[in-house]
């Protein structure tokens, strides 16, 4: 395909219109909506309120919770191993099993060892490589109220309001009051946060926060935190098995969680881990592509932990609310779904349609903004791309026009670099965006120490629910995996000390789950957990032979 400075000719035509209207749009911003208009727009176009997109869960402790079909499908699915699997040969006998080697899992492992567990009696089992996770992808920053005119109480207010007061207050309390301790810990571990000469953090504002409390490490905050944590865990000699996702939890005869069945993704051999306590830290679900949305999430974000925990009887919360970020990249294909920071709009870039017209106030709340983009595209005013999806323009060059040449390069260097890689100069041309699936707001219910409703099972990080209610604020999830990873690690270590090694391992809970499913009238051949999404080409799959090799 012929590209002219990064864009195909058809898109160039629309860009010409954007350029034409730019002078008249400067200084003239589309008016913000009234609450009534917003409500209407949300109900009409936000994916969370789309008719027919969700169905209620039909059985189990959360019977009635509305879930996107893609997620509901996984709850209404058969296990990958049958309940009669031979569990007699235990491959790993440990005190603490941690499922998920992202941020939360690694923090939990480190603190369990700090709390006294022998590192060789801890095991991290993870799906891909240690650290291949959403944690590594976070760019913006991590919140913590540590300046004099800020306080944990202020942080509490912001988080509760951001979550529309659906958050569990005791979890938010833990989140905000541990935050400075976490940043302090990171400082001791050598996380290279942006600092001024005195050593104070350079703080940025973030969506929904009333104080500037976003600590960042350039545009690579998550990467920097994750690689330091991984290094620390390695140095503490904490064993990690990679490419070995958990596909089922194991229980003992009392129904307490007692380990998991892992599968080696390369040999497909299963591996029984017996553990006195288990922490689930499997992260989010973007790769389920709810309603076919692209996602910002990593390859392994497929909600496995939710399924495993629910089968073992854990309660869930707030899984009806999914966070869509309004500005995911829509072009070029290799950037599809990747995050374009809110700052671009904050600095004056207007969203415009294919005719170069404004259609929404640039800084509506995230959900409203996203809905407006979706509506515009459904009205045929979006810009089609060669790879099939549509998007709206974000008129990036306005940033330099408003704030002076060079602003984009200096204030948005990561964005600039990313587009430059694909031949697009965002100082000259608009960029194409469309909402993208970003974050799982809800998850497994825990208490402030990460304990779920099932003894022996803990959860931390994106997989847990309640702390953000129905809507998370930027910067609170890097924080939450640290706060609750640490708390869960310590609590599990203490729990382990009082436990004997479980004697009998069983998968009876899975059999029970299947019975509930049958009772609810669900017949299916689907299996879960999903483990990895399938992006193989249709053409290739049409001739796929499932032959033994």
């Amino acid at each position, binding site marked *: 395909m012929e590209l002219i400075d990064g864009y195909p000719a058809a898109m160039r035509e629309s860009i010409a219109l954007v350029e034409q209207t730019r002078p008249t749009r400067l200084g003239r911003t589309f008016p913000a909506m009234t609450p009534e208009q917003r409500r209407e727009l949300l109900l009409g176009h936000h994916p969370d309120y789309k008719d027919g997109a969700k169905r209620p869960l039909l059985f189990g402790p959360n019977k009635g919770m509305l879930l996107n079909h893609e997620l509901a499908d996984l709850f209404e699915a058969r296990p990958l191993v049958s309940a009669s699997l031979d569990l007699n040969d235990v491959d790993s006998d440990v005190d603490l099993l941690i499922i998920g080697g992202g941020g939360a899992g690694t923090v939990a492992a480190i603190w369990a060892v700090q709390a006294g567990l022998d590192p060789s009696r801890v095991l991290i089992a993870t799906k891909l490589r240690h650290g291949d996770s959403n944690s590594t992808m976070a760019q913006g920053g991590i919140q913590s109220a540590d300046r004099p005119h800020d306080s944990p109480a202020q942080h509490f207010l912001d988080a509760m309001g951001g979550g529309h007061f659906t958050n569990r207050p005791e979890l938010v309390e833990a989140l905000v009051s541990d935050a400075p301790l976490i940043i302090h810990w990171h400082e001791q571990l050598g996380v290279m946060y942006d600092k001024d000469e005195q050593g104070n953090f350079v703080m940025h504002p973030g969506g929904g926060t009333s104080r*500037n409390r976003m600590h960042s490490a350039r545009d*690579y905050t998550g990467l920097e935190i994750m690689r330091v944590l991984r290094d620390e865990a390695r140095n503490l000699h904490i064993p990690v098995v990679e490419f070995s996702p958990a596909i089922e939890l194991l229980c003992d005869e009392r129904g307490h969680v007692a380990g998991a069945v892992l599968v080696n993704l390369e040999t497909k051999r299963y591996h029984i881990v017996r553990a006195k306590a288990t922490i689930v830290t499997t992260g989010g679900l973007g790769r389920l592509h709810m309603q076919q949305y692209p996602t910002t999430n990593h390859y392994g974000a497929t909600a496995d932990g939710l399924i495993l925990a629910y089968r073992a009887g854990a309660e869930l919360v707030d899984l009806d609310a999914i966070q869509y970020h309004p500005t995911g990249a829509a072009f070029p*294909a290799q950037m599809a779904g990747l995050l374009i920071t809110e700052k671009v709009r904050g600095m004056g870039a207007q969203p415009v349609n294919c005719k170069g017209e404004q259609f929404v106030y640039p800084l509506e709340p995230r959900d409203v903004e996203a809905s407006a983009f979706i509506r515009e595209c459904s009205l045929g005013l979006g810009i089609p791309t060669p790879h099939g999806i549509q998007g709206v323009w974000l008129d990036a060059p306005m940033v330099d026009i408003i704030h002076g040449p060079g602003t984009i390069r200096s204030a948005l260097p990561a964005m600039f670099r*990313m587009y430059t890689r694909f031949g697009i100069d965002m100082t000259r041309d608009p960029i194409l965006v469309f909402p993208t699936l970003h974050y799982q707001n809800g998850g497994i219910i825990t208490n402030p120490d990460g304990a779920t409703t099932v003894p022996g099972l803990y959860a931390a990080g994106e997989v847990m629910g309640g702390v953000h209610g129905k809507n998370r604020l930027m910067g609170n999830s890097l924080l939450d995996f640290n706060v609750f990873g640490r708390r869960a690690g310590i609590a599990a270590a203490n729990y382990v000390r009082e436990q004997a090694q479980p004697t009998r391992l069983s998968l009876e809970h899975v059999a029970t789950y299947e019975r509930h499913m049958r009772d609810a009238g669900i017949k299916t051949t689907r299996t879960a957990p999903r483990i990895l999404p399938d992006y193989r080409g249709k053409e290739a799959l049409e001739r796929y032979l499932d032959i033994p090799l």
Partner: protein
Amino acid sequence: MSEQTGMITMQLMGKNYQVPTGLTIMAAIEYAGYKLVRGAGCRGGFCGACPTLYRRSDNHRIFTALACQTLVEDGMCLVQMPFVPVVSRRYDLHQIAAKPNTLLQHFPEIAGCVACNTCTRACPQGLQVMDYVQASLRGDIERAAMLSFDCIACGICSSRCPADIKHYAVGLLARRLYGKYVTPDSPQLAARVAELQTGNLIADLNALMALSQEELRARYEQRTFETSEENKEPFSAIQHYNSPMDPVDYKDEIEV
């Protein structure tokens, strides 16, 4: 649509596949029917799971790329390199000091760098890899930390280095030393941590916890906003962020 359906030929580990133009190398491999287990992580240029080596017909060199960040080209002959073994000595950061020879002591092999700059040319992040190795060699921890900061540990440099240097492990230790010992600890944070110990701040929090939901909402509405540092005016992106209404208010969970 004719141009969009244009196909090109990619040679993957010695086999030819027809794939559409405009795909990333990663998507092209999947299009061809491979289900990736290794060789894909974040799919967004952050994790380094997808290093790829390739050649073009018009050049004798080996090129390197991140499969998730690079377009497939006609005639590309490629292989993914999902793993570069790195075994390095463990350390306890709290027990070592940031001395000029600390990095050399932990990674004596950096003295073998012949300054060929192969690593720099191979780095898909465009980092000055040799320069950070050289900075490490001469004990310039700050420089090594700064130059290596954007490293995503893909390992391509280490697979190409004639001196068998573990670049990204060196950079990581340099950055941790820099973060811990070279930059000063935050005085504000230290004060806050001390203050937390006194319990005053927790009392404020408890007071909020005791409020009814209506009172809490009122307090939320009354929040004052910090002005943005540069222009001393409220940064509108922040205030406009929050939806004035609750999604849960008007469409509740359905009971069945």
